[in-house]
């Protein structure tokens, strides 16, 4: 566990006067009541006592919009979709509106040189203070950089250059956090995760394919409120969201405990909403907040929709065995290996047995008899 503590820009003059979060929210038509509700929700998300909500409100009210540079590398834009397609107006949208998103491939209006200039400008103007959000993995330093370039710059160069003066890096999605699909066997592009390359800055992994919108906004809210990054687990994921497994918070858990399982996707068990373990649910090994926060504005989530958890917020989940194989089933096919080893065993056993038999036979053949008279003669 680690707690990263970069300093946020407190009271420092910004290059251009930015509205505070409070001003920005009011301009977006958010009532005081709605704002406090957001603060209370943020407090509970971060496992803080409700009494912290006013403190969060005060901090958020006066917080300056931090500059955020969003880098998209080998990704599918699903993470951005997850964040922007949430039901509007949500707290997520509002917080996103109130950060200064200075560079984002998908969302920025600028293109070409202008876009790259925006990135460089944000880097120089906010040196040491901006946040870098990365989605997507990138070809490692020893891989062919040609697999992914932006404006003629390799992903590796762009990441290292941008991160050099950053306060912290947030790796959004399982590709940025762990390598994800591009890194899956056989990893043709030599993909690596952000944390494999960035060693001298705090890296927060917000994994998931895609991650829950509320998780990234929660991390940003905590950064704005307390000026520090959240407590992290062994994979550098915020503990507040990744501290508990899907299995432990799953509403179908009682069926697991009772031993009631759906055997196929359309049997009685599936219709009755029984546990999906036998259909390949990876909930027991997956740490994420889907079971509590749900998706689409709290409407539902995969397990509620009858689909087993794929374990998308865990490292190397693409290579962790079949999505529809139970968690206890090993990846790959051991049938041929088992047959070969068995055949070798039979051969060895037969050889040893036959050897023992022939030894017995030859011993019997060489067995010499002796009579009492012959023995007497020898004496």
């Amino acid at each position: 566990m680690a707690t990263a503590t970069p300093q946020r820009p407190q009271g420092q003059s910004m290059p251009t006067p930015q509205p505070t979060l409070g001003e920005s929210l009011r301009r977006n038509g958010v009532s005081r009541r709605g704002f406090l509700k957001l603060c209370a929700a943020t407090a509970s998300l971060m496992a803080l006592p409700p009494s912290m909500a006013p403190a969060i409100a005060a901090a958020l009210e006066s917080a300056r919009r931090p500059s955020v540079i969003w880098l998209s590398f080998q990704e599918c834009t699903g993470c951005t979709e997850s964040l922007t397609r949430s039901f509007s107006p949500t707290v997520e949208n509002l917080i996103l509106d109130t950060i200064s998103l200075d560079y984002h491939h998908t969302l920025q209006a600028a293109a070409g040189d202008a876009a790259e200039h925006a990135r460089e400008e944000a880097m120089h103007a906010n040196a040491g203070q901006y946040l870098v959000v990365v989605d997507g993995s990138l070809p490692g330093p020893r891989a062919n950089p040609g697999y992914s370039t932006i404006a003629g710059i390799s992903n590796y160069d762009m990441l290292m250059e941008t991160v050099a003066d950053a306060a912290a890096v947030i790796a959004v999605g399982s590709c940025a956090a762990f390598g994800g699909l591009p890194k899956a066997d056989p990893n043709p592009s030599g993909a690596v995760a952000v944390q494999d390359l960035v060693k001298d800055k705090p890296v927060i992994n917000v994994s998931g394919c895609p991650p829950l919108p509320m998780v990234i906004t929660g991390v940003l809210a905590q950064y704005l409120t307390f000026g520090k990054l959240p407590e992290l687990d062994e994979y550098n994921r915020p503990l507040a969201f990744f501290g508990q497994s899907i299995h432990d918070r799953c509403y179908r858990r009682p069926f697991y405990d009772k031993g009631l399982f759906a055997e196929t996707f359309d049997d009685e068990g599936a219709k009755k909403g029984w546990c999906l373990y036998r259909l390949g649910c990876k909930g027991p090994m997956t740490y994420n907040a889907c079971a509590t926060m749900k998706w689409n504005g709290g409407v539902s989530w995969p397990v509620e929709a009858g689909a087993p958890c794929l374990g998308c917020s865990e490292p190397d989940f693409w290579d962790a065995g079949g999505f529809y194989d139970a968690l206890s089933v090993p990846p790959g096919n051991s049938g041929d290996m088992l047959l070969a080893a068995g055949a070798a065993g039979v051969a060895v056993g037969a050889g040893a047995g036959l050897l023992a038999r022939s030894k017995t036979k030859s011993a019997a053949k060489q067995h010499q008899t002796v009579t009492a008279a012959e023995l007497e003669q020898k004496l």
Partner: protein
Amino acid sequence: MTAMEFLMLTKGPLFQAALAVFALGLLARLVEIFALGRAHNYAAPRGNAALGGLRTMYKRFEPDPGTFKAAPFDVVVGMIWHVGFIVALLLFIPHVELIKSTFGIAWPALPNPVVDAVTAITLLGLLAALVHRLAHPVKRFLSTTEDYLIWSVTFLVMLTGWLAYHRMINPYPLALGLHILAAEIFLVVLPFTKLTHIFTAFVARYYNGAIYGRKGVQS
């Protein structure tokens, strides 16, 4: 190494390796026994050898009254934890799924809480057996390193499984990985120690029973 890398290592390459050693070792041991052959019996048979063999395979499950009188603890506790081990091994749903994927055969399983309780009893039984072995002067004298080794690998596989089920080791991939690793150690050790009795006990019972069956006497 992260917990997930550990789990994938135990589920992938280590599982394959353990399975290979187990299959090779066990079949080598069994086939060697069968290939040795038996001396030809020239006497006229008075009964059915196969029937006697099969009957004895079953009959040996019933504790012999003399043995029970002499060592009731061994009979009762031994029976309890052996049954518990087999129930947990063969009737726990994740194990049935594993067997189905590896050998292509499956059977109904027991509800998780039942297997949980059986496992707890088995763990207690194994602990009691160890305490008895250490406390009993004769048993202690007769015990070899191998005896303690096979107790350990049996106990560990049950204990790690029970801890993983109750999620008492965090994160869960570490708990599951430890259990799978313990099972792999069990599989590797099995063909080369007394644990082979899991399979050879039935061969020996059949052999004894067949001898008496052929003679037309009870065994």
